[in-house]
C-alpha cells in the first residue's frame, strides 16, 4: 500500500542518488588533469515496484554502484606500442651520439683517408720534398687518430648503456612491487564489493610505465593483473612480485637475470631495456666490426705496398702502420710505426728521387681489398650503415609516437573527463535534486494538512 511515508522514502532515496551523482561529477572535475584518471559514472536503476492489488507502483531509484568508463583492449594496445616506442627512442638517443662520429662535413674518417692519399700523390711530383713527406706522415697520423677516436666513441657509450640497463632493471623491480601491492588492494576491495576504479587506474599507470621499460604482457584474472616479461618470465603473479637482477657477463656487459638467476637478456626485445640492449649488443658491434675491418685491411695492404718500394734512404719500405693481428680491435689498436717522413717508400728502385712506388701506395684507395670493397667504398658504406640505423630508429619512433597519440586520443574519447559534459550533468543533477527536495517539501505540507485535520476535529 502506498503511503505518504513511503513517498518520503522515495524522495530521500532520490536526494541520495542525486547527491552521489553530484559527488561523482565533482570527483570527475577534480581529476580532470590527473594522469591516468578514468572518468566515473553512477549506475542508477529503478527500484523493484510494490504490488498493490492489480497496481504495480514504482519504488523510486536505486544506486547500483560507481563504474569507471574504460576500454581494456585499448590500454593493452597502448602498453604494447609504448614498449616499442621506448625501444626506438632509446636507439635514437644512442645512435644520434654515434652518428656525430661520422660527420658529412669537416674532418671525418673518410676525409682524413682522402687527404692521406692526396698527400701521397703529391709526393709523385717531387718525392724528396721534405714538406710533402711531412704532410704525408701527418695525414697518416690523422687517419690513425680518426680510427682510434671513432673506435673509442663507439665503445664509450656501451658503459653508459650498461648503467641504463642497471637503473632500468631497478625501476622494473620497484614498479613490479608496486603492481603486486595494488593487486592486493584490488582483491580486497573487490571482496568488500567496493569500487575498484581508482586502483585499476593506478595499476594501469604502473603497467604502462613498466611497458616503457621492457616488453610485458598483462592478463586480468581474479588475483588482479599478472605481468609477464621476456619469454614468460613472471614479474607479478597475483600479490607476489618477482625481482629481476643484473650481473656483469663474460663479455663485460650487464646481463639481466630473472628471479631464479637465469639469463633472460636475449628475450627482452622492447622497452627502454630492449632498445638499449639492441644498440649495445647488435648495432654498435656491427658498426665497430665494419670499422675494424676497414682499419685492418687498409693498414695491411698499405704496409704490403710499402714493402714493394724503397724509402728515401734506399732501404726496403718498412711497415708504416702497426696493427693488431686480429680484425677485432684493429681500429682501436692501429698506430703509426714511425713518424720519420723519410720512411715513406716512394721509390721503386732505391734511388731517392724515384716516385715509382707512389702509384702502388695510392692504388690502395680505390683497389678492391680482401673485404671485396675499396677503402673509399668501405668508408662510405660505414656512413650509410650508421645513417640508415639512425634514420630507421627515428622514423620508427616517430610513427609509433603518432600511433600512440591516436590510441591515447581514442582512449581519451572513452575515458577522458569532459568539463562540458560534467557541467551539463551538474545542472541536470541540480535540477533533479531541487525537484526531489520539492517533493519532500510537498509531502511535509501534506503531513501538516493531515495533522491539522486531526487537530480541528
Amino acid at each position, binding site marked *: 500500500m502506498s503511503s505518504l511515508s513511503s513517498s518520503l522514502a522515495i524522495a530521500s532515496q532520490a536526494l541520495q542518488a542525486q547527491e552521489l551523482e553530484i559527488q561523482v561529477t565533482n570527483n570527475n572535475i577534480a581529476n580532470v588533469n590527473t594522469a591516468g584518471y578514468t572518468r566515473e559514472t553512477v549506475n542508477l536503476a529503478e527500484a523493484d515496484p510494490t504490488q498493490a492489488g492489480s497496481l504495480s507502483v514504482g519504488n523510486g531509484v536505486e544506486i547500483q554502484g560507481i563504474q569507471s568508463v574504460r576500454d581494456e583492449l585499448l590500454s593493452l594496445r597502448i602498453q604494447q606500442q609504448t614498449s616499442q616506442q621506448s625501444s626506438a627512442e632509446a636507439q635514437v638517443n644512442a*645512435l644520434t651520439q654515434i652518428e656525430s662520429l661520422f660527420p658529412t662535413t669537416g674532418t671525418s674518417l673518410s676525409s682524413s683517408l*682522402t687527404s692521406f692519399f692526396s698527400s701521397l700523390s703529391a709526393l709523385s*711530383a717531387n718525392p724528396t720534398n721534405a714538406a710533402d713527406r711531412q704532410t704525408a706522415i701527418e695525414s697518416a697520423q690523422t687517419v690513425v687518430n680518426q680510427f682510434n677516436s671513432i673506435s673509442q666513441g663507439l665503445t664509450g657509450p656501451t658503459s653508459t648503456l650498461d648503467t641504463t640497463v642497471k637503473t632500468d632493471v631497478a625501476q622494473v623491480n620497484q614498479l613490479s612491487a608496486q603492481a603486486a601491492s595494488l593487486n592486493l588492494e584490488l582483491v580486497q576491495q573487490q571482496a568488500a564489493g567496493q569500487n575498484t576504479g581508482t586502483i585499476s587506474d593506478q595499476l594501469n599507470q604502473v603497467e604502462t610505465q613498466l611497458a616503457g621499460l621492457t616488453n610485458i604482457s598483462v592478463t586480468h584474472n581474479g588475483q588482479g593483473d599478472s605481468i609477464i616479461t621476456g619469454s614468460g618470465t613472471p614479474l607479478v603473479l597475483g600479490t607476489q612480485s618477482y625481482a629481476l637482477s643484473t650481473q656483469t657477463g663474460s663479455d663485460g656487459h650487464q646481463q639481466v637475470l630473472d628471479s631464479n638467476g637465469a639469463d633472460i637478456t636475449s628475450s627482452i626485445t622492447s622497452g627502454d631495456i630492449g632498445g638499449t640492449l639492441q644498440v649495445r649488443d647488435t648495432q654498435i658491434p656491427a658498426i665497430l666490426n665494419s670499422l675494424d675491418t676497414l682499419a685492418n685491411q687498409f693498414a695491411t695492404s698499405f704496409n704490403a705496398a710499402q714493402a714493394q718500394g724503397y724509402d728515401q734512404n734506399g732501404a726496403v719500405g718498412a711497415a708504416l702502420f702497426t696493427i693488431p693481428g686480429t680484425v677485432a680491435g684493429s681500429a682501436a689498436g692501429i698506430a703509426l710505426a714511425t713518424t720519420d717522413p723519410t720512411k715513406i717508400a716512394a721509390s721503386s728502385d732505391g734511388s731517392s728521387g724515384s716516385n715509382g712506388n707512389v702509384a702502388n701506395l695510392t692504388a690502395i684507395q680505390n683497389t678492391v681489398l680482401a673485404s671485396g670493397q675499396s677503402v673509399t667504398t668501405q668508408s662510405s658504406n660505414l656512413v650509410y650503415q650508421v*645513417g640508415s640505423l639512425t634514420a630507421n630508429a627515428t622514423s620508427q619512433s616517430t610513427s609509433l609516437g603518432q600511433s600512440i597519440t591516436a590510441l591515447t586520443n581514442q582512449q581519451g*574519447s572513452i575515458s577522458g573527463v569532459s568539463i562540458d559534459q560534467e557541467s551539463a550533468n551538474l545542472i541536470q543533477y541540480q535540477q533533479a535534486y531541487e525537484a526531489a527536495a520539492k517533493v519532500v517539501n510537498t509531502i511535509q505540507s501534506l503531513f501538516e494538512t493531515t495533522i491539522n485535520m486531526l487537530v480541528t476535529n
Partner: protein
Amino acid sequence: MRFNPNINAAVLNDIQQSEQNVQTAYQQVSTGQRVNAASDDPAAAAALVQLQAQAASVDQYTANAEAVLSQAQTADSTLTSVVSQLNQAITLGTEGANGTNSATNRQTLAADVQSILTSVVGLANTSYQGVSLFGGTVSGQAAFVADPASATGYTYTGNSGINQISVGDSLTVQANIPGSTLFTNPNASVLGALSNLATALKTGKSADVATATTQITAALNYVTEQHTVYGNTINQLNSQETYLSQETVTLTSRESSLVGIDSATAAENLAQAETANSAVLAASAKVIQTSLLNYLQ
C-alpha cells in the same frame, strides 16, 4: 560518438611537430644543405663520401699537373738553350773545318767550343726545386760532375730512372728524361761530340773537325727529337688541366644536387613552415580556452 575532451596533448604534439618543421627548414636555409647528418639521407651521405674522395683526387691531379707542368717547362726551355748552343757549335765547327784558318784561330775556336761544352754541362745540371732535371731519379746532386779521367771531362752521376706522374685516374705523364739518354747517348752523345770537336780543333786536322761537326749535327737532331717529348708532355698537361677543371665543376654540381637544397626552395619551405606554425599556434590558443563554463551564468 564522444570526442576526446582533452585535446591538450594532441595540440602540444601538433605544435611540437610544426616547430620541428620550422627548425628543419631553418637549418636547410642556413646551411644550404638538405643533408646535414648521415641519417637525413643515408644513401646520399654515402654517395657524398665517394664524391668527396673523387673531388679530392681531381684536386690532387690538378696540383700534380701544375707541378709537373712547371718542371717540364723549365726542362723544355733548358733544352731550347742546349739546341741554340749546339747550333753555335756547328757554326764554329764549320768555320774550323775551313783549311785557311790559322792555328791561333783554331785554338780560339777550340776554346769557344770548350766553353760551349761547359755551358751545356751547366744546362744539363739544371735543377728545379732541388731536383736535378736530367739526373734521372737521383736527387740532391748534380747530374754531371767534372772528371779528368773521362774523355769528355765529365761523368754522369745520375741514373736512368724515369718518373711517371699520375695526373688522372688512368693517365700518367713522363716527368723527366735522364741525362744519360739526352747528353751522353752512345749513338749521339752531345758531350762526346762537343769534346771531340774541341780536341779536333786543337789538333788542327780539318777532316777530324768536319767529322766532329757531323757528330754534333747528329746530336742536335737527337736532342731536338727528345725535345718534343717535353713538348708533348706540356700539351698533354695543358689539356688534362682543362679536363680536370671541368671535372671539378661537374663534381661540385653533382655534390650540390645530391645533398644541397636550392635557396629558393629552402626559403619557400621556411616561409611555409613558419606560416603553418603560426596557424597551429593561433588555432591552439582558440580551441583550448573555451568550455561550457564560459557561457553558463
